[in-house]
């Protein structure tokens, strides 16, 4: 593999790693604060799954790293512009309905993306996708179930979910927006076909919103930037918190 294609492959893997890590980090903020004990435990399970998946992706990104950076150095010591997660996952939790809506949109996309990646020509990627998709399958069923129930619950719960959808939908376009790196990885048989993912994502999410009695807003221009390192304001604070130990005590064992 040429140095450039190894770097590109690593960038692609880092996008997967960062998505799982950042949304896992956001979910873990709920630990001890969720609306019911059963929910607290369930949300922590999803966070544990996603951070576990992130660790697998980071381990692979570390193998591909020409500077020999470790899993933790990659996860916890890069500058903000070097994080390649989509904007959706870094959005602040808001209320529990907002968190669930963010999760629902993410889970459905994540599932179809991983489904594509199980067929990756890269054996490590397909193996990690294979392992992750079993967990994500459950994430989808859990978040869909809750969205449908809350959408058809009380007037208040319906209102909160519709508001969350209005706030978050603008970040959905980036999920399936292909750029040069996606195209290159697809051509090599390594990456997922985002146009196929988009079709399945749109069909499933439209069905979900319909069942939940919710309506996705019409958005003239979808927000983008996370995949290339241009993030929202809240990302800096998330990283400041997540990186504080590695930044203030570099090069130590914990």
């Amino acid at each position: 593999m040429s140095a450039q294609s190894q770097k590109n492959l690593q960038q692609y893997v880092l996008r997967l790693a960062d998505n799982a890590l950042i949304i896992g980090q956001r979910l873990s903020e709920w630990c001890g604060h969720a609306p019911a004990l059963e929910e607290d435990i369930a949300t922590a399970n999803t966070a544990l799954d996603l951070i576990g998946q992130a660790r697998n992706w980071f381990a692979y990104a570390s193998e591909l790293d020409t500077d020999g950076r470790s899993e933790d150095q990659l996860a916890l010591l890069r500058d903000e512009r070097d994080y390649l997660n989509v904007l959706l996952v870094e959005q602040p939790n808001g209320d529990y309905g907002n968190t669930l809506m963010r999760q629902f949109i993410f889970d459905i996309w994540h599932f179809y993306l991983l489904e594509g990646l199980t067929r990756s020509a890269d054996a490590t990627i397909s193996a990690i996708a294979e392992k992750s998709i079993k967990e994500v399958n459950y994430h989808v069923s859990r978040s869909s179930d809750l969205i449908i129930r809350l959408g058809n619950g009380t007037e208040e719960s319906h209102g909160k979910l519709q508001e969350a959808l209005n706030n978050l939908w603008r970040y959905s376009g980036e999920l399936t927006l292909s750029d040069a790196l996606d195209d290159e990885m697809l051509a090599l048989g390594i990456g997922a076909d985002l146009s196929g993912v988009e079709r399945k994502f749109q069909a499933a999410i439209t069905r979900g919103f319909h069942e939940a009695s919710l309506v996705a807003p019409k958005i003239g221009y979808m927000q983008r930037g996370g995949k290339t390192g241009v993030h929202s304001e809240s990302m800096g604070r998330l990283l400041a918190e997540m990186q504080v130990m590695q930044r203030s005590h570099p090069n130590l064992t914990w």
Partner: protein
Amino acid sequence: MYAQMVKATGKGVKTREQMDENERHFQDRIDNDIKIEAKDWMPEGYRKTLKRQISQHAHSEIVGQLPEGNWITRAPTLERKTILLAKVQDEAGHGLYLYCAAETLGISRDEMTEQLLSGKAKYSSIFNYPTLTWADMGAIGWLVDGAAIMNQVPLQYCSYGPYARAMVRICKEESFHQRQGFDIMNVLAKGSEAQKAMAQDALNRWWWPALMMFGPSDADSVHSAQSFAWNIKQNSNDELRQKFVDQTVPQAEFLGLNVPDSDLKWNDKKNGYDFGAINWDEFFAVIAGDGPCNKERLGARQKAWNDGAWFREALIVNAEKRAACKQAAE
């Protein structure tokens, strides 16, 4: 301990002659190690005391999520982050098991929650102390979970079936909690000067609150005597505290850390350590609500409960709608 201020009701232990037939039969079962189950007859005092004890225990698990939860988002490595998250999640699970055990006695989880949030119910004093550095995650696992285990292991054999079964599950799951804490301390103690200092600082701040977890001396308490007779308490507070000191001091020595007690000295005669006087004024102040973090801890639980009300309500309303639909379809 996790239920450190449980006042048993009643006026002391009755003699066999003072007991009526139900009470004698009940005491015989306990003395023969036959578990009491939810539907069995039990003295009102036993029921009341257990409700208090189990719910205090449950509240401690729930509030106990907060000091450690404080560091999940800041854990120094991804592995430490997952371990800590799994551990704090376990605490929620343990609270859940314990609430369910208490519910078998005829009190709902919402009632218990209300008692916690109104400040009427107590929880362990230890969780009102702040977690200031990463080393506090080590100190809590090592010292706080270490102390809790000493109390919880014998509770697996207590007389009330649902409580005992919850404790079996909890002890099984908790077995990794103390070890991960010690492991954090061990890595710090072998690390840089700054890491060692962080570990020592954590031990300095957590040592005395950990000893207070066992509660005030209860050697002469009539309440304890009744709880012993009912087999819902198996060791005196002082006995467990001594055991904890004897077990923990050599571990601190292994780590190369100093226990912050100038009176600490091995006593050959009693085959244990003598240790300094505990500041009980501090303990009672913390229990009464004047610890460093009481307001934050209770405030966080109140916020979670109030902010979550719409969510809990909506799911009930939705379930009712679904049930009605199903019925209409039949």
